[in-house]
C-alpha cells in the first residue's frame, strides 16, 4: 500500500510517455535507458536503448548524460522506472520521463527490440562487473561475443592476453603455436602448468581457457606459421595479436595483416623492457614502417637467449588484451600511431609518436603487395653485415 501511494505520487510528478512516443524520441536522438538488471535483458531490450541497471544508475548516469539532458527510463512494466526517475530528479536531472508499461508493453506494441544472445543468466552473472560499465554494457558485451581474435604465440605475451580475453568473453579465441610446454617457460607463460610439461602449448592453453570460461570457443592451430599457411589461418579472424618470439614470424604476421586488411596488435619484450602498439587494418603505419627489416641474429638475441623478467611480458600481454577489447568494442582510443615503451627497471611508460613510412613497400599508398619474405634462411645466414646493400 505504501508503495502504491508512492507510485501514484510519482505518476503525478513525472512525465510519462507511451512506448510509441518514447520510440519517436529515441529515433530523434534522445537517450533511453533500460534500468533492468543484466539478467533480465536476455529476453530482449528496446533497440537503441542503453543498459544501466537501477542499482548503478546514480553512480554512472553522468557518464551517459549531463543533468540538463532529456532522459527516458524504461523497466519491465513501469514501477521501477518511476522510482529510478525520482532518484535522478534528486540528483538534479529535471527532464526525466518514463515509459508506461515498460518493455512488456513496448514488445506488445511491436516496437523494435534486440535480443543479445550473449546475455543468458550465466553470462549476466559472469560479465556482471563489465556489463555495469556504461561504455561496455550489453552492446559491448555482444561485440566481444561476436569477436574473432587470433593470438600468435601461446607464450609469455599470449598467456596473459589469452587469459584476460577469454575471461572478458571474446567469442572466438584462436591460438597458434607449434611448441611444447617446457619447465623454463613457466616463469612467464602462465597459461601452462608444471603437470603439463611436454604437452603441446595449444592443448595446454585450451585446457586452461575452457576451464576459465566455457562460454567461449577456443580454436587451436598447432603449427608454425609460414607463407604457405598464414592466409588460411588468418582469414577466419578479425583481429590478430602478435605475441610471437621471433622476427620471421613477426614480419609474416605484419605482411599478412596488411594483405588481408586485419589490425595487428603488436607486443614484444626483452629483458626488462617491452614495446606495444596497434597497427590498424591497412597499416600506415605498420610494423615495417617502424622496423623495415629484421636485424641479423647477432644484432638482436631472441628472448630465450636474452632472458626476460616474467612480469614484463605479463604487463605487455595485458596491454595487448586491452587493445583488443578496445578494437572489438570501439571504446576508448587504441594505440594506433603510438608506440608505448615500458621499462620495468624504472617502472616508466613512454609514448612515442609513429608516422607512416612513405617508402614502406607494404602499406604505402599505391604499393602492390610485394609478397611474403622467407626470413628464416636470411636471419640464420652468417655474415649478414656483408649482405647489406645500403652500406
Amino acid at each position: 500500500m505504501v508503495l502504491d501511494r508512492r507510485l501514484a505520487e510519482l505518476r503525478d510528478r513525472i512525465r510519462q510517455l507511451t512506448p510509441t512516443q518514447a520510440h519517436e524520441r529515441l529515433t530523434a536522438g534522445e537517450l533511453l535507458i533500460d534500468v533492468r538488471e543484466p539478467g533480465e535483458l536476455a529476453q530482449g531490450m528496446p533497440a537503441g536503448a542503453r543498459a544501466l541497471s537501477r542499482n548503478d544508475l546514480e553512480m554512472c548516469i553522468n557518464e551517459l548524460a549531463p543533468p540538463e539532458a532529456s532522459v527516458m527510463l524504461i523497466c519491465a512494466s513501469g514501477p521501477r522506472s518511476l522510482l529510478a526517475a525520482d532518484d535522478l530528479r534528486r540528483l538534479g536531472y529535471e527532464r526525466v520521463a518514463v515509459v508506461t508499461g515498460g518493455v512488456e508493453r513496448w514488445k506488445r506494441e511491436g516496437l523494435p527490440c534486440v535480443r543479445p544472445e550473449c546475455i543468458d543468466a550465466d553470462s549476466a552473472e559472469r560479465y556482471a562487473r563489465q556489463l555495469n560499465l556504461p561504455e561496455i554494457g550489453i552492446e559491448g558485451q555482444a561485440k566481444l561475443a561476436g569477436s574473432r581474435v587470433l593470438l600468435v604465440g601461446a607464450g609469455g605475451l599470449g598467456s596473459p592476453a589469452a587469459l584476460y580475453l577469454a575471461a572478458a568473453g571474446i567469442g572466438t579465441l584462436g591460438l597458434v603455436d607449434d611448441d611444447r610446454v617446457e619447465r623454463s617457460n613457466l616463469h612467464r607463460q602462465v597459461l601452462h602448468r608444471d603437470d603439463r610439461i611436454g604437452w603441446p602449448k595449444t592443448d595446454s592453453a585450451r585446457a586452461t581457457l575452457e576451464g576459465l570460461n566455457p562460454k567461449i570457443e577456443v580454436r587451436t592451430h598447432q603449427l608454425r606459421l609460414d607463407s604457405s599457411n598464414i592466409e588460411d589461418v588468418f582469414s577466419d579472424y578479425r583481429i590478430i595479436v602478435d605475441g610471437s618470439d621471433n622476427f620471421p614470424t613477426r614480419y609474416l604476421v605484419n605482411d599478412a595483416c596488411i594483405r588481408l586488411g586485419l589490425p595487428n596488435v603488436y607486443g614484444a619484450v626483452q629483458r626488462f623492457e617491452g614495446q606495444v602498439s596497434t597497427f590498424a587494418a591497412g597499416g600506415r603505419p605498420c610494423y615495417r614502417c617502424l622496423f623495415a627489416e629484421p636485424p641479423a641474429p647477432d644484432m638482436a638475441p631472441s628472448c630465450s637467449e636474452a632472458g626476460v623478467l616474467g612480469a614484463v611480458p605479463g604487463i605487455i600481454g595485458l596491454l595487448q588484451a586491452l587493445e583488443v577489447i578496445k578494437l572489438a568494442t570501439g571504446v576508448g582510443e587504441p594505440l594506433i600511431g603510438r608506440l608505448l615503451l615500458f621499462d620495468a627497471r624504472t617502472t616508466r611508460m613512454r609514448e612515442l609518436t609513429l608516422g607512416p613510412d612513405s617508402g614502406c613497400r607494404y602499406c604505402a599508398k599505391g604499393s602492390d603487395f610485394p609478397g611474403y619474405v622467407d626470413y628464416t634462411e636470411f636471419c640464420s645466414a652468417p655474415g649478414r653485415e656483408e649482405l647489406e646493400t645500403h652500406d
Partner: protein
Amino acid sequence: MIKIELPDALRPLADGAREIAVEAGNVAEALDELGRLHPEARLRILTRGGQVRPHVNLFVRERDIRSGDGLATVLEDGDSLLVVPSVAGG
C-alpha cells in the same frame, strides 16, 4: 648537453650506461660522439656506411627522426636522443 638514451640491449656495449651525455648539434654528431666513446654501440645503430639500421629507430622529443630531418635533425641543449631497436621476444 645532449642525452643519448640506450635500450637494455645496447647497454653492455656502453659499460652498462643507460644514458650517455654528449655535446652535439644534430643526431649524426651525437652518434659520432657515441662512436668515439663506445664504437660497438654506434655500430649497432648505424651501418658502417653511416645509415640508420632498418631495425633501429631514433626519436627526438618523442618523434621519429624520419618525420624530421633524419640524421640531420637538430638537437638543442637538453634534448634527448632515444634509441629504440626492434626486439622479438614474446
